């Protein structure tokens, strides 16, 4: 498949870049461990760029991804999210928020010793769709859930 090849190339380029950064980083110890961070994906300001940063040219919707989260968040500062992938060969799970200034919130590499079942808590500026992007082999799959962010308290 065309995009699969491209993906591998992109990945190769990135890992080379990472290796270079790591080499430079080793001279600057504080930067070293921070070098693998996917800057392009995390700093993307559109969903398309975030996907691109993650290497996902295309993604198909999948019923095999579960997003476990309350429909309403009592406060946008802390929104608990759990994602479970039943897609065989899942190697990465990412959480994206459509209406946040930077969409990508967190990504998890699912190695052979980890179940594709991860939980974290994120900030949401407003009511928005949450997208869970799953990588399995060369392919990407998504699931979407809307979470309403409500105004709580006396508002003062």
């Amino acid at each position, binding site marked *: 498949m065309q995009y699969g090849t491209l993906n591998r190339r992109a990945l190769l380029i990135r890992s080379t870049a990472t290796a270079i950064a790591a080499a430079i980083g080793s001279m600057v110890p504080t930067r070293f461990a*921070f070098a693998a961070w996917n800057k392009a994906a995390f700093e993307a300001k559109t969903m398309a760029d975030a996907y691109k940063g993650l290497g996902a040219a295309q993604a198909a919707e999948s019923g095999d991804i579960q997003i476990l989260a309350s429909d309403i968040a009592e406060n946008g500062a802390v929104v608990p999210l759990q994602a479970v992938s039943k897609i065989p060969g899942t190697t990465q799970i990412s959480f994206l928020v459509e209406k946040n200034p930077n969409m990508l919130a967190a990504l*998890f590499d699912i190695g*052979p010793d*980890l179940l594709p079942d991860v939980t*974290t808590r994120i900030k949401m500026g407003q009511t928005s769709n949450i997208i869970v992007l799953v990588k399995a082999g060369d392919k990407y799959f998504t699931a979407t859930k809307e979470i309403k962010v409500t105004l709580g308290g006396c508002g003062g």
Partner: protein
Amino acid sequence: MGNPMKIRAASKDGVTDVKVLMSHEMETGFRKDASGATIPAWFIAEITAKLNDKVVMQSQWGPSVSKNPFLAFKIKGGQKGDKVVISWVDNKGDTRTDEATVT
């Protein structure tokens, strides 16, 4: 160096359930202080988990993960007495490592 994490790791039916609380501001970089100046982003960027000495989980975060982050994941295998070690690195290069024994 940051304050210590709280790590709980419990083994059941061949799976080790790990729950972690970390002490961190997770500043978005979009907020302004009282004088109107933007507060720079400050957040945990990378997290690594090891079971005994083997890396089992790696995660990358942006500043939209909540303050005092919570993280839960499930390791295949692991048993009582094993060691779970969690490390994080933030975007300023600060790091913290803590460990817990699987119960």
